[in-house]
């Protein structure tokens, strides 16, 4: 009657890159006449590095302010 294991020893926190990659590159993709997708999002997928650089500096700003 042991408790189920709550996590793995190898569990770790995820990186911002991981999060961004997931949200920008995965998730349900829908189209159709009622849907307006964010323009240029496909370009971002190809250029994730630009986004990562942008995010990193934004985080640094946050860290300085808080």
């Amino acid at each position, binding site marked *: 009657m042991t408790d189920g294991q709550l996590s*793995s020893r190898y569990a770790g926190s995820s990186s911002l890159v991981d999060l961004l990659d997931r949200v920008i590159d995965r998730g349900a993709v829908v189209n159709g006449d009622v849907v307006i997708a964010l323009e240029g999002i496909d370009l971002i997928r190809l250029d994730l590095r630009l986004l990562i650089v942008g995010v990193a500096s934004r985080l640094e700003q946050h860290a300085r302010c808080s």
Partner: protein
Amino acid sequence: MWAYAVVPERTRLAEPLRGLADAPVQLLGDGSHALLVSVVASDAIASAEDPHALAAHAERHHEVVRRVLDSAPAVLPFRLGTVLRDDAAARVFLERRRGSLQRALRHVKDRREWTVRVDRSGAQPRGEPTASPPPRQGPGAGAAYLAARRHQLTTAETERRERAALLHDVGLALHERVVDVAVGHERDDAVVFAEHYLVERAREPEFFETVDACGDALLERGLTLRLTGPWPAYSFARTSMVEEAHD
């Protein structure tokens, strides 16, 4: 109207949520399913050319989806950037995809996504051919050098094959514990294995046990396993949400 995800109609938010541009998150249902949305002014939606704002959107979008995962048995997250014109458009959207949405939600119900990556940042890998053996002078030096070099390369090759076999076995072992697998696409060359798994919540203990066993075996070979999650099922939401034929 920014859309975050589709959830079953019965979903109730445990707490009021704020989404993009701090707009409240609402549920918009059609009797079968509900869309999680926020009404946002179009100029508040970042253009894809503004990485800072877009990154903020991404984090907020994910935060909303993640929180709802606690209130809903099934969450089908949208990719960033799904925008609907208004209420009416949202209802039409739901109506025309009812069948696909039903199937898609069923696939992720009571299941969570976990990601396993393996990289080479562990202990020094053994047997990698680094520098060539120093060539010696004198008779037989050439042959000795070549023999030593061949030995180095053979050892390295053997290591590589054993590593590949181990990774293969890790994949097989993990696949037994999950209901679906999506291959990860990594930009980092040091990552030698990356897969996303859809795991039944009730079966997570066994999954973790297997992850631990794999992690231990990999560590002996200088490879590091990292598990991240739980995630909303982004990698398993890619079912084609086609519009069904109108009557």
